[in-house]
């Protein structure tokens, strides 16, 4: 649930309300004028549309960003939240966990691309995020992505996954016979295998290649791992 205060005012609102799994997150604009902020907050919590916050007791996180608050200012804001009977203030601060988890999720949600067609020699393609190539990557064809690369065809050229240093990125292809593989900073010449459906990944900066049927289990571990890091 996202209650965007834009409906209440035309200019960029000084308060943004986000619904999280645990309750409500109030993000206070760190640039906005203090009086304006308080007025806005008052109308938000007690004005005409305030009834949307009515209901059972709800946990509330208030995050004021990098703003330096004096003692009085802090009470002025906090007092308004306390004045609402059904708000239980769970956290109050400048960089609450709720805010961080929200922004982190945003940056980690990678863009996904689908590219239809042949990647020909001398035709470098670059993608921000993960990419699925539906077609072949010809010898000397070059695909780069900040995330994973999946080739739904023959990979005969050069693939560079995790180009900004993501060592968890992988390269997979239906027919895996690349000229050169790069994941993050690790470069490897392709193993001369039988060109089946395979994928390449890194373990301690060492390029590994495995058959695609192992990918699902491996990917589960990877997901768990990256989630842990995020926490």
């Amino acid at each position, binding site marked *: 649930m996202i209650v965007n205060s834009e409906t209440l005012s035309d200019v960029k609102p000084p308060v943004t309300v986000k619904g999280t799994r645990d309750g409500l997150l109030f993000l206070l604009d760190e640039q906005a004028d203090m009086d304006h902020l308080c007025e806005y907050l008052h109308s938000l919590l007690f004005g005409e549309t305030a009834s949307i916050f009515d209901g059972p007791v709800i946990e509330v996180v208030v995050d004021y960003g990098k703003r330096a608050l004096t003692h009085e200012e802090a009470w002025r804001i906090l007092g308004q939240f306390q004045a609402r009977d059904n708000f239980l203030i769970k956290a109050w601060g400048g960089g609450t966990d709720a805010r961080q988890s929200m922004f982190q999720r945003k940056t980690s949600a990678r863009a996904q691309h689908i590219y239809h067609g*042949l990647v*020909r*020699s*001398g*035709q470098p393609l670059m993608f921000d995020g993960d990419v699925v190539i539906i*077609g*072949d990557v*010809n*010898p*000397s*064809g070059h695909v780069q992505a900040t995330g994973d690369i999946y080739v739904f065809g023959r990979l*005969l050229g050069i693939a560079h996954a995790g180009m900004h240093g993501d060592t968890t990125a992988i390269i997979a292809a239906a027919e895996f016979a690349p000229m050169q593989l790069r994941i993050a900073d690790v470069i490897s010449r392709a193993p001369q295998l039988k060109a089946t459906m395979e994928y390449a990944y890194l373990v301690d900066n060492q390029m590994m290649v495995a058959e695609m049927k192992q990918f699902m289990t491996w990917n589960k571990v990877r997901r768990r791992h990256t989630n842990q890091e995020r926490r």
Partner: protein
Amino acid sequence: MGSVIVVTSGKGGVGKTTTTANMSTALALLGKKVCIVDADIGLRNLDVVMGLENRIIYDIVDVANGDCRLEQALIRDKRFEHLTLLPAAQTKDKRALTEAKMVDLVGQLKVNYDYVVIDCPAGIEEGFKVAVAPADSAIVVTTPENTAVRDADRVIGLLERDKVGDPRLIVNRIRPDMVKRGEMLDIDEIVQMLGCDLLGVVPDDEAVIRNANRGEPIVVQPNTPASLAYRNIARRILGESVPLMQLEEKSGLWGRVRKLIGGR
């Protein structure tokens, strides 16, 4: 209004000029009015292959510079009434021939001919751009070698970027015996990799070299395999559907005898 076809390859020496000469002659023999334009300025060859070298007075750069009229530079081939050549310059500054001039010039030719065939220089630099600029469609020539296929791939990419119609492929100088032994890329592999339509396959044939040296296109000799291949290509350009010719040598009595004596 005619159609403009550019014959290109990227790599040099794969047979662009020979293909241009023979394909155009075959089209002319089928009754089409054809003008061949040699865009390989500085290293002109087309007139040599066609045996028209001694008749050049003006060339394409003269036309571009306005030193002569277009009609003055055109050479009519006396052997084939429908065939005309616009020769390239040997020594003049090729920068005079810009993309815009080329488009204008070919635009004038288009009105009077069914097909304008442009022989493109090797490489992908300025000369390539000039030759490709007026084209409605492209024919990419390659040989069954890794280097040639790689360059063809690159050129097809550039043609697609420039939106020059669907490039069609001619695989030149194929040697059926080597393909059979797995020592040469086979045609399916090349076509699959390049991802474009196959217009024709021309077998490696000594007669091609012999005739080129004599200044006579191979298509005038009806019985060699290469001649047949070029005629088939011309018919496919006209929209006929002609099956690919059987390249494998007939293993008749003679074939078996030859094998016994150690020939191919």
